[in-house]
């Protein structure tokens, strides 16, 4: 479904962060990526999203989403692809403060020129039925992340990218949010890649990968991760 081939990334300072990384993610699976701070987890998500470009390598580095090469897309095409096929969940929620909850959730639908009826349905699915006309300042952190999950999934993306989605939440709320995320991505069938430092969060995933300077490898020992 999503294939990374020989992916390398060097920061502008000349510091190499990812070197010849290859991996295949399957449709519908929920994958957690753990690793030390600064090892390149968020950079990897940005590359997958097309928000950053991998190094131009002689051995044809590429990112293939359902067989289509994303790394060769120009900015406009990458924008269109993100809009239609991807959903994002961020640590700091990134909910727009001047829009109601329904308007926030409906944004991906509007950007894709789709009817916004499913926005209310998604708010109901994440436990915020009846609060469509509330504003983000009326919500707790956990509720805001629920809105962010609804927004990430409302347009039925093929790929969901989550960057530390529970990093700003207390353990109890984090657990509830992860259960909700797990349920919703199972229902949507989207492939989900979650970057996290939290072993508890990683334990909810189907597969746990560890990113190191040597590359990505699968692990089951989530509790040995850095905190």
């Amino acid at each position: 479904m999503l294939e990374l081939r020989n992916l390398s990334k060097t920061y502008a300072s000349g510091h190499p962060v990812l070197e010849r990384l290859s991996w295949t993610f399957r449709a519908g699976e929920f994958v957690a990526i753990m690793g030390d701070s600064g090892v390149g987890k968020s950079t990897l998500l940005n590359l997958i999203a097309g928000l950053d470009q991998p190094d131009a390598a002689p051995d044809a580095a590429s990112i293939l989403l359902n067989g289509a090469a994303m790394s060769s897309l120009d900015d406009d095409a990458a924008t269109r692809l993100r809009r239609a096929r991807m959903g994002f969940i961020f640590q700091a929620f990134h909910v727009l403060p001047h829009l109601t909850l329904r308007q926030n959730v409906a944004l991906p639908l509007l950007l894709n020129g789709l009817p916004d009826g499913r926005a209310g349905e998604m708010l109901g699915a994440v436990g915020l039925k009846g609060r469509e006309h509330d504003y983000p300042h009326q919500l707790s952190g956990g509720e805001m992340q629920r809105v962010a999950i609804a927004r990430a999934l409302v347009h039925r993306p093929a790929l969901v990218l989550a960057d530390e989605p529970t990093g700003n939440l207390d353990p109890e709320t984090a657990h509830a949010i992860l259960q909700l995320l797990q349920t919703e991505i199972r229902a949507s069938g989207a492939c989900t890649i979650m970057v996290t430092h939290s072993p508890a969060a990683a334990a909810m995933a189907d597969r746990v990968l560890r990113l190191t300077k040597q590359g990505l490898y699968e692990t089951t020992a989530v509790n040995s991760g850095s905190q």
Partner: protein
Amino acid sequence: MKAAHNPMPPPPPHSWSGWAFGIALIALVVASFATLPLKWAEFFTPDAVHSTLEFLHGFVPPESGSGFLRKTAIATGETLAMSALGTLLAVLGGMLLAIPGAGRFGRVPRAAVRAVLNVLRSIPELVWASILLIAAGLGPFAGTMALAAHTAGVLGRLFADALENAAPLPEQSLRSNGATPMAAFFYATLPQTLPQMLSYTLYRWENNIRAAAILGVVGAGGLGQMLKYHLSLFQMPRAATVVIAMLLLVALVDAVSFAMRRALTR
């Protein structure tokens, strides 16, 4: 039980540049007084006080004939219209310049547009009016354009700074979700800065009411032009009516603007 005494950590060392700046400032103020021919003593002589009181007495009572009041009301409307239209044009011009001025199209356009904004706002309204009077002739059009030119420079700079200082995450989030740069700007950054921009606009409108009244003195219409006319003919009661109209207009606009800014920041 007495709490243990914890001494405060030492304060940060004072920078010598702060002291040097303070001393230089005081020297500048002293030098200004020393070099200007300020004749304070002559200003307060009995003769000077007497002639000032006599001059002020000439303003009482203000002219209250209905014909003159109607003319004053028309000039008040003209001043209000000049300030409102000048501010509106400045908002449009300022906004158009603020977008490249906030670095949205790169560093070179940013520097170029900021230089233009500097020029626009460095030239005072009176100078703009004097220049535009030559091109557009006497009347409120030149005054309106003078206000628009100067205020576009001020608002353009303030709007550009507001856009640059807006939190970048909402816009980045929308870009990540596949919004075009324009959609991300209109949905995320502009709504964040809009209350601040409206507040700046209202404040500049207050300033422009006062400026519009003064611009009339150089022939740009409105209350200022009436004031200059009646003062030059020594028709002090009529001049007093015009001054009262100016005060009332400024007070009214100040009150409206204050109420609107409070409502916006609530």
